[in-house]
C-alpha cells in the first residue's frame, strides 16, 4: 500500500465558510474513507484569512494571505492509503469541493528514512 496526500484548493475565500450541509457531506466522505480503513491522517484545514496566512518570498518580502499566484489557494489536506494513484483519485472524485469550484491535487507521499 502506498500513501497519497490529497491537497484541497478553492478560488473564492467566501467558500471557506461551508454550510452545515456541506460540512456533513464532507464528514460523510471522510468517514467513508476511514470505514475502508484507508485514512492515514485526517489532516487539517488551513486558514486563508488575513492574520492567519502570510507568504514569505526571497528578499524578506512578506505579504498577507496565502499563496495565490495560481489564483487559488490551499485550504486543507488529508493522507489516504491506496494500492495505486488511480484508487486515490477515485476517492478524491467523491469529495464535495468540486461543487465549490475547487480542486484536489493527489500526490504520492515519499517517506525519507532517517539515517
Amino acid at each position, binding site marked *: 500500500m502506498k500513501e497519497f496526500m490529497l491537497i484541497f484548493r478553492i478560488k473564492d475565500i467566501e467558500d471557506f465558510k461551508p454550510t452545515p450541509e456541506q460540512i456533513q457531506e464532507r464528514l*460523510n466522505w*471522510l*468517514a*467513508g474513507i476511514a*470505514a475502508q480503513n484507508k485514512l492515514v491522517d485526517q489532516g487539517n484545514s488551513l486558514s486563508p484569512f488575513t492574520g492567519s496566512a502570510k507568504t514569505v518570498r526571497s528578499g524578506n518580502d512578506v505579504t498577507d494571505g496565502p499563496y495565490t499566484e495560481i489564483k487559488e489557494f490551499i485550504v486543507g489536506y488529508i493522507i489516504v492509503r491506496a494500492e495505486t494513484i488511480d484508487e486515490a483519485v477515485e476517492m478524491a472524485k467523491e469529495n464535495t469541493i468540486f461543487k465549490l469550484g475547487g480542486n484536489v491535487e493527489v500526490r504520492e507521499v515519499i517517506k525519507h528514512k532517517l539515517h
Partner: protein
Amino acid sequence: MNGQQFRNNSLLAELFRQEYPKMTAVLCRRFGLEHMEIAEDMISDAFLKASEHWAVNGVPENPAAWLYTVAKNKARDHLKHVSLFETRVAGNIKPEEGENEPDFGFGSGYMEDSQLAMIFAVCDPDNSAEGQICLALQILCGFSVEEIANAFLTGLETIRKRLYRAKTRLRDSGFQIRTLSAASMQARLDTVLKTIYLLFNEGYFSKTNDQLIRNELCAEAMKLAVILTDNPLTDTAQTKALLALMCYQASRLDARTAGTGEMILFEEQDQNLWNQELIEKGNYYLVNACQDKQVSRYHLEAAIAYWHAHPAAPDRWQHILKLYNQLILIEYSPIAALNRAFALAKVYGHEKAILETEKLKLVDNDQYHKLLGYLYEYVDAGKAIDHYRRALQLTGASPARLVLERKIERLTGI
C-alpha cells in the same frame, strides 16, 4: 482454585462469587502478587472449612464475616510461621506504614481500595485480550474455570492454559499492588476500561445461548465500573461514559432473545421489554460524562446507544450517522464500518448505502454479507439471496443461522 466444590451448596456458591474477589484482593495486597497462590489457598481453605463447619453447626448469622475471620486467622498464622523461618519473606510482608494493627482490613475502606488495586494489577496492557478476560473473570469476578469455559464455549484445558499464562504474568509483573500510586493508576486506566468493555461485550454478544451467563457477565462488568466511579482518581469522564454505554446496552438484554433463544434483530425488539430504569441510569452517567469537553470512543458509543434507546426521535439516524462518522475517525473497526453503513442506509437510502458498503470489501465477514443481503432485499432479490447464502456459509453454529435461513426461504419464495 475453583468454586466447583461449593456449587452444591447454593449459599456457599453465592458467597464464593461475592466474597472470593474481595478476599483475594485484600490478601494479595498484604502478601504481594508474587505470593498470590498463598492467598488463594487460604481462601479456599476458609470456604472448605465453612462447608464442613456449617453443615454440622448451622450457618452463622453473618456468613461473610465468619469467612473473613477464618481467612484472617489463617493469614496471621502463616505470617507468624514464615517470620520464624524466612526473614527475607517476612521483610516483604511487613505491615504497611501507618498501619499498626495487622487486621488485614476486611473492613470497608481498605477492602474497596484493595479491590481497586487488584483491578489495576489484573489489567495488564501486555496480556492477550482472551487471557485478560479469563483472568478478570476468575480473580475479579469469582468465576470458576467451568463457568468461564461455559461462557466462552471453550474446553476446560484451554481456559486453564490461558489462566496459567496470564497468572504467571501477573505474579512476575512486579506490579505494586500494596502501594498503588495515582500515576500507575492513570497509566493503566485505559487498559482497565478496555478490559471492562471486553468483559461486557463478551456477555452482550456472547456465543452462548445461556441467558443467565450473559446477564452475569454484563452485570460483573458493570459492577467493576461502579467500583471505578466510587474513587475520585478513577471516576473520569471516560469511566462514566463506559458505564453509561453499558447501562443502555444492558437495558435491552431481556429484549434481545426470544423464547427460542434466537437473536432478535434490533428493529423487531419488543420495546416494552426494555429496562427503563437502566436507560435512566445511562442518561445520568452520560450527562455526567459530558461535563468536560473530552470525547472518547465510549462517549460516542454511549451516545449512539442513547439514540437507540430513544427510537421515537425523528432525526435519530442523522445523529447516529454523525456519531459513527466520528467513531470511525477515532478508531477503525469492521463492526463500526458496518454499523455506519447501516445508519447511512437509514439516512440516505439503500442504494447509496450499498455503494458505500461494497467499498468496505469485508468479504470474509458474515455481518458484511448480512448487511448487503438486507440492503439488497428491496433493490435486487437475487443479490440479496446470494449475500444471505454467503453469510450463512460464514456463520458457525449459532442462533443467527435460523434468521438467515428464514430470510432466504422468504426471498426465494417470492
